[in-house]
């Protein structure tokens, strides 16, 4: 039950897709990531991820890497709340009998949302888990990024929600949610490469 509560179906978020379609021409002329020589290029990455079945619930441990661009860092420092989304899909490989022949069945779509805020009074950074409401305070942004990158024991899916047949696997990615930015920033964030921070899909089998 606890697991079910934590599973949140992702909302239909068609607007980024619409934006990408509308602005596809503009994207061609937008500048690439402005990374200085020797500096780590901005971007999100998933280094490792694994699941463990504990008491009938699959728990996720993942090591994530978040390298923010200068633009996003400047926004955070100026008190703009930035939302990071960890998107997870539990999929079942398509079978001849119980699935359609074209794509794999989606068993669960989970979205963990974290918001990074600043606290000017104490000069600290606050990481708020928007799913659970839990907050964590960090003295620096680096500490916050480290803390965010260590995802431990995230409840993924109840074992009973999966059938006995078929092979299951997980897909996961992290991204900066542009739609959560203040509205005046959104058009340019969609058009600007430093704001389009997103990891590749990371995929691994669900060990049962």
């Amino acid at each position, binding site marked *: 039950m606890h697991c079910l509560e934590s599973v949140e179906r992702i909302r239909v978020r068609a607007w980024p897709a619409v934006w990408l379609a509308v602005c596809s021409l503009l994207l061609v002329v937008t500048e690439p990531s402005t990374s200085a020589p020797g500096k780590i290029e901005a971007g999100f990455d998933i280094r490792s991820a694994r699941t463990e079945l504990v008491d009938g619930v699959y728990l996720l441990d993942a090591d994530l890497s978040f390298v923010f661009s200068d633009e996003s860092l400047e926004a955070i420092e*100026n008190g703009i709340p930035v939302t990071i989304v960890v998107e997870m899909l539990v999929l079942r490989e398509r079978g001849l009998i119980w699935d359609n022949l074209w794509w794999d069945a989606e068993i669960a779509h989970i979205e963990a949302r974290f918001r990074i805020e600043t606290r000017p009074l104490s000069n600290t950074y606050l990481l708020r888990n928007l799913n659970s409401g839990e907050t964590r305070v960090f003295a620096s942004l680096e500490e916050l990024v480290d803390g965010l990158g260590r995802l431990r024991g995230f409840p993924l899916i109840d074992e009973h929600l999966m059938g006995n047949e078929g092979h299951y696997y997980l897909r996961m990615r992290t991204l900066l949610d542009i739609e959560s930015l203040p509205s005046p920033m959104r058009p340019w964030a969609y058009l600007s490469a430093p704001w389009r921070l997103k990891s590749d899909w990371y995929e691994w089998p669900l060990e049962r």
Partner: protein
Amino acid sequence: MAARALKRFFTGVGPILVLVLLLLVSLVMMSNATQGSARFGQLYSAMLAINALGLIALAGLIGWNLFSLLRRVGAGEPGARLTVRMVAVFVILSVTPVLVVYYFSLQFLHRSIDSWFDVRIERALDDALELSRTALGVRMRELLAHTEVVAGDLVDMPAEQIAVGLDDRRRLAGASEFTLIGANGHIIASSSIDPTAIVPNRPSDAILVQLRQSGTYIGLDPIGDAGMHVRVVVGLPENVATTEPRILQALYPVAERTSTLADTVQTTYGKYRELAYLRKPLKTSFTLTLSLVLLLSLFAAVWAAFYSARRMVAPLQNLSQGTRAVADGDYETRLPSSSEDEVGFLVESFNDMTRRLAKARDETRLSQQQVEDQRRYLEAVLSQLSTGVLTLDEGGRLFTCNRAASQILRVELGDEAGKTLDEIDERHAHLHPLKQALQARVSAEGVEDWREEVILLGPTGRQVLMCSGTTLSASDGAFAGHVIVFDDVTDLVQAQRNAAWSEVARRLAHEIKNPLTPIQLSAERLRHKYLGKMQSEDSNALDRLTRTIVQQVEAMKTMVNAFTDYARAPQMQLRNVDVNELVADLVELYRAGESEAVIETHLDGDVPPLEADPDRLRQILHNLIKNALEASEPGNPARILIETRYINEPSREMVEIRTRDFGRGLPAHMAEDIFSPQVTTKTRGSGLGLAIVKKIVEEHGGVVWAENEAQGGATVIMRFPVVVAESESASTSHRHAI
């Protein structure tokens, strides 16, 4: 029908108005979202996308309108250039004020946003934040010192008393939670103000790292729902009894009033910083919204310009097309009347005009039909007339003619329409006398009605035409040409003449012949009775006198027989006659006789056989030779030249026989009447020789006339038509009738 209604709906103003309204609503929502409205904030991107798509659709619509307009201008469609001018005027009139408003709105907007930010407010907020930090800092330092004292107390405390000691000290310190944590992070003891709290709050790894670095940690953290707390973490001094390092974490609640104020300061400061950071994006965003509004207004105005221009030009286009249709002769064009304004009045006037034109055209058509019927009627009448009718226009060109005219003149006059008399004469030489007569009349001024007899020698022989003519006047009285009416009176004239002269001859012969026989008998009786009784001298005289009487009576008998011959007009025996041979035979007879006359002949070998009565031809030639001999100068041997000639012209073939003497010639006043029976230049003879010649020539359909030669003497010229085979029977019967 449904498709047309659908098309009308989509090309009408409705869908565009709906689109523009939707875009306006969307822009209002977007504007609200830009200003921080939570309700529209989530829809901001959608609004922006919808607006962008809507504007692209509008731009596409305008582009299509522009493309169609330019294509119509290129094709030279009526009204296209006017549409361009109207669109240009509308666009300039609508776009200019919008651009001016846009410029000033933009300026005003940027200044308004800039006015939100003030250095003094910013400094005040910084100071407020600093003041809060300072106030909290003093308190936090006190709490740190107190916590370190507590930590010192716990160092030597036996393990079994630690829980109680911790609780006592927490109560004394007014803390909400005290937690003693071991080296590996396990909780040794904990005391909380909340009895339901099972799991104490743990310091984060970052705090532990800072603790290791500086020995203490003090921070202001929100603890769950309990509000702001001061977190103090200190390490316990090491002692001999406990070898493991321990840390003490104390959580002190911040006073509610202090917490609220600090929160307010922090939130306001944060909002201000956020706003300051969003200053440029906000400007850009407002500019974007304003630009979208501008573009929407512009596009809507431009589209409205196209729509209005199209609506205004449409009746003019219809008028233009209608005018072209009328110019092409389509008077049934009616334009749809769409409005009550001046253009509508113009359209109504156009429709009225086309109605009147159609009516006038119908009436003209009817009157043309009537004229045509009249013309056909006249043509039918004229074609049935046996009288030839010609009309000449003002320039003397053949204008119309009827069938009888062509038949009489033996010329297909229909082919000669539009030609002058000279041109017709060149192609048809036998019409020359007619041309001369007509030209004399046509060119004469002041002659309106005239009548004249014209003699032609046509393909079928001599024709006597009785022509009469008059001038034609147009409706306005102006000269419009001539009309010439003519009848072929050849047969009539000939018959009348023949009848008259036959009657004269017959009566003359009768009256003269009756006394001749008694005279002759009396003379012979005198001779028989008294010749032997008289003396020789007297008898000689009587013999001479009675012989003279008898001879003269014989001569008179011969003359009377000649009259009888003229009047009798026996049946002609037509056969093919070789004219040259006939001439040669006759001349040979004269040469063989006692005559000293020199008769020369020039005979044309091409002369074809002539269908004629050879006896009569011989009589003609005999008469002419005799005449020529009699006309010769006395004392000189007579000289006669006889020529035959074949005349082959396009419209006629003739055989000409010329008999020339070398005598005194004809008196000038007698040249034309020489062939009349009562006319003679001689003291002897009946005077009928040339009259008989003319009679026989005319019986053969020919003509005869006499001319004086310049070198002296006179020539009698006869022309006989060579009748073609197909008209042979007709001409034969014609002559028989004569």
